[in-house]
């Protein structure tokens, strides 16, 4: 009855973040970025060519079901793993979590104005969908139309003001035409216009949006919708106003791309759909219309194998060649011991952390927060819970950057290094007195609070570890395990210290709602107006270097307040056949992100 890793992530995310799969599912791996290229001295084209051909089966925990990954119904990591190889988009996320322009598709992408923010995309004239029709501005316009969140129709169930549904909740007066999983970025656009025979796209923003590279991922072919709906030219349809045309477009956009029909789920990249068997497999073959550098492998098959240990056995048995199952110590041991298998455990995007709640006056004293951070033995927790899967795991020391990301620096070890003596010294210095019971107290108030979590084993182990290590430092901490904690108590801030996870995101703006004053996901009531203002500025800063500096400052400001203690990233366990060259872990896009450069021997 295990929920899959991805749905777990989704659940843990609690909405922080443009969950990577939703808006950035589309990134492409250009051959030039792969680490497997020959040494740079070999500028000459005489280097041994990579062996061409071959077949690879990649195991997925659940199957991708739809070509359009931007709908809330079907948005999934499983789709992303497929779409990496066939869906075009101007940028892809590489294994360092950088947004890289996909040179095969884009001639150029430029910020031509910062006020108003204007981005001009120039599309490679050779770029075509697998049916030979050009990939062009229509496809960008469709993405904008579908995800700006402004088009809605009357709700047929709405009978009048005060109408409620079966559960007694108010019924909305209107329903959106498009089932968009997210509208971030698009909702800030003022217009998207086409020019230059539809090979140039100009996006103009109402308000600055620094993470604009996350938009226009996952393009779906607008000409297919035109053919299916009878709309002659989609760019002539007003993208923000309801009309019969847009309703037809919406209907098809929502469901028409389900099911991987090769005639509809067209390819705009290396591979195209050969066949799809529901709940079993998707077979990809080379796209003969692809205009760029062709991929090596003849076929890439994504096979649904739910059980992690079944994936491991199949890999060792040579039935599959690559996998990235749900982390499991037993399976990790199997993979580590298996012969003919490259096991490459990594730290994933999901990270655990403690949040202290501002509603509890005890945490108003910064000495308590810093003393607590000093008595949490992050390394010991990792050694016990993560190292069995990923021996290289380290404590996480940022809340905005992931370790592999440009801009990541250790900004938290100065607080989060286990040191009982230091912890006690901080408390003593702040007027706390160690009582005969072994716990500190101040003004008749004992140093006691609860750590709350949703009752899974890993969290319980984490909390117990902290309870024990902080007891040495004079903290009286109690574990509070509650299956409804995440869904009901966390969002309303009903806790002292919360232990839960966020999903890290390549988009630096993603955590804004968590750490801003009155942010939608700021459950702990953290208030630092200065940091909030800095964050806002950084999110609108279109100069990348400047923005990086600003983000670093935001990160430091948040961590210096010690309201949150980042702990560790959950491990991921990609593994592949020793005969396979090229795979490299990529948290948001999945292992297939660069499958176009994989080779088998």
């Amino acid at each position, binding site marked *: 009855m295990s929920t899959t890793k991805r749905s777990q992530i989704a659940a843990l995310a609690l909405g922080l973040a443009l969950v990577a799969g939703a808006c950035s599912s589309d990134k492409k791996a250009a051959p030039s970025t792969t680490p497997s290229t020959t040494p740079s001295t070999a500028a000459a084209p005489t280097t041994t060519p990579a062996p061409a051909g071959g077949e690879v089966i990649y195991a997925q925990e659940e199957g991708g079901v739809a070509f359009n990954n931007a709908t809330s119904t079907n948005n999934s990591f499983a789709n992303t793993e497929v779409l990496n190889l066939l869906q075009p988009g101007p940028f892809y996320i590489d294994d360092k979590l950088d947004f890289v322009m996909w040179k095969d598709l884009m001639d150029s992408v430029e910020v031509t104005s910062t006020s108003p923010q204007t981005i001009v995309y120039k599309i490679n004239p050779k770029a075509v969908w697998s049916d030979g029709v050009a990939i062009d501005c229509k496809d960008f316009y469709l993405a904008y139309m579908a995800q700006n969140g402004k088009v809605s129709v009357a709700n047929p169930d709405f009978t009048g003001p005060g109408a409620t549904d*079966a559960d007694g909740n108010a019924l909305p007066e209107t329903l959106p035409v498009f089932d968009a999983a997210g509208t971030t970025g698009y909702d800030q656009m003022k217009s998207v216009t086409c020019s230059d025979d539809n090979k140039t796209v100009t996006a103009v923003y109402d308000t600055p949006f620094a993470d604009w590279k996350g938009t226009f991922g996952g393009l779906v072919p607008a000409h297919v919708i035109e053919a299916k709906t009878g709309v002659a030219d989609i760019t002539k349809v007003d993208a923000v106003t309801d009309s019969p045309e847009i309703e037809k477009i919406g209907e098809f956009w929502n469901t028409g791309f389900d099911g991987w029909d090769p005639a509809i789920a067209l390819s705009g990249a290396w591979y195209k759909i050969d066949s799809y068997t529901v709940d079993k497999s998707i077979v990809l073959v080379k796209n003969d219309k692809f205009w760029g550098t062709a991929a090596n492998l003849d076929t890439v098959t994504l096979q649904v194998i739910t059980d992690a240990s079944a994936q491991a056995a199949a890999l060792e048995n040579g039935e599959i060649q690559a996998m990235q199952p749900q982390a499991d110590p037993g399976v990790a041991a199997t993979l580590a011991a298996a012969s003919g298998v490259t096991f490459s455990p990594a730290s994933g995007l999901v990270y655990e952390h403690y949040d202290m709640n501002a509603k509890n006056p005890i945490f108003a004293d910064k000495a308590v927060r810093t003393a607590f951070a000093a008595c949490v033995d992050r390394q010991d927790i990792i050694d016990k819970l993560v190292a069995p899967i990923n021996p290289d795991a380290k404590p996480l020391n940022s809340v905005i950057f992931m370790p592999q990301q440009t801009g990541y620096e250790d900004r938290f070890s100065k607080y989060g290094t286990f040191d009982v003596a230091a912890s006690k010294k901080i408390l003593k210095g702040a007027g706390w007195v160690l009582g005969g019971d072994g716990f500190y107290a101040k003004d008749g108030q004992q140093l006691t609070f609860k750590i709350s979590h949703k009752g899974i084993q890993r969290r319980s182990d984490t909390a117990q570890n902290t309870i024990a290590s902080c007891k040495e430092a004079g903290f009286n901490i109690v574990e509070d395990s509650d299956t409804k904690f995440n869904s009901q108590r966390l969002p309303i801030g009903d806790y002292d210290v919360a232990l839960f996870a966020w999903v890290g995101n390549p988009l630096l703006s993603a955590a804004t709602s968590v750490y801003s004053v009155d942010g939608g996901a700021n459950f702990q009531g953290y208030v630092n107006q200065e940091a909030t203002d800095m964050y806002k500025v950084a999110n609108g800063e279109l100069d990348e270097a400047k923005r990086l500096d600003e983000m670093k400052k935001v990160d430091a400001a948040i961590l210096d307040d010690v309201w949150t203690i980042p702990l560790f990233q959950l491990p991921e366990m990609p593994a592949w056949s020793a005969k396979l060259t090229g795979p490299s872990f990529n948290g948001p896009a999945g292992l297939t992100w660069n499958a176009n450069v994989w080779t088998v021997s």
Partner: protein
Amino acid sequence: MISFIIRRVLVSIPLLFLASIVAFILVVNTGDPIEDLRTKPNVPKATIALREHELGLDKPVVERYVSWLGKAVHGDFGKTIKNQPVWAQVRRSLGVTLRLVLFAEIVSVLIGVMIGVVSAVKQYSWFDYGATTGAFLLYSLPVLAVGSFLKFILAIRLNRWIGRGDDPLIKTIGEGTANFCTASKPYNCGFIPSVTDFLSHAFLPMLTLVLITFAGYARFSRAAMLETLNADYVRTARAKGLSERRVIMKHAFRTALMTVATVISLDFGALIGGAILTETIFEWHGMGRVLVESINKIDPNLLLCWFFVTAVAVIAFNLIADIIYAVLDPRIRLD
């Protein structure tokens, strides 16, 4: 007989109807299918409202049930929460389960009944003791252990030993090689390649199923045979001077067959619901998986369709069991 079947089918309809109500109530109370969506603040509220509207979550339970039923009786089982046609998935899964279960069941029955009969005829012999102990051991083995053992010892080691490490002869997952018969490889879609590929995948799960199920049939047949072997009419048959073989097959076994066949038929009906553990271990995405997945994902339409197919199978095989019994036992009249 015909009127009996018609009557039984007619009786089954309200039964199915009642059961579907119970199933529906259970399903809609297992949780919120779009909880994930609700807990992501970046998903627009309007989108959530749209999903609620499309899935009918904003409607009262009775209205949802009636709407489901109205479509179901016309053979439309609706879509999954992922907007995929339910029937297509269930139909495929049914085929997968049938392929697995049918063969395994036939082999289990053949082996089990054979061992049971011999055990009974040679009661208290070394064979009987050996078979009884062996059957008991296999019967109590966890499927998971059998499955892992077979995968790692039989499949992986054996494949490498015979030099088929890259192109394994014995497969551990799935009901067929995923990229075997595809649009780009039509030459693999013929009968012989398909059967070869099927067998290489079916070997382990069938072996597992056979190992864990034949023991039950052996024990059951042994008990049934012991009963008939001690029956007066078997003594009569011997007194006629018939050969022992004829006494056992024509008299003892023929009569024991009535109960054995009934049990097999009932078992078979239950197996349509999926051999959940075996399917999970070997990644055969059959009916067992449909059940597990529909519960995990809180997918009402999928679960209801699973339930419907399973219920129909159980009812049908109950009916078949009755018919088999009636055919085998002239004392029973179906009218």
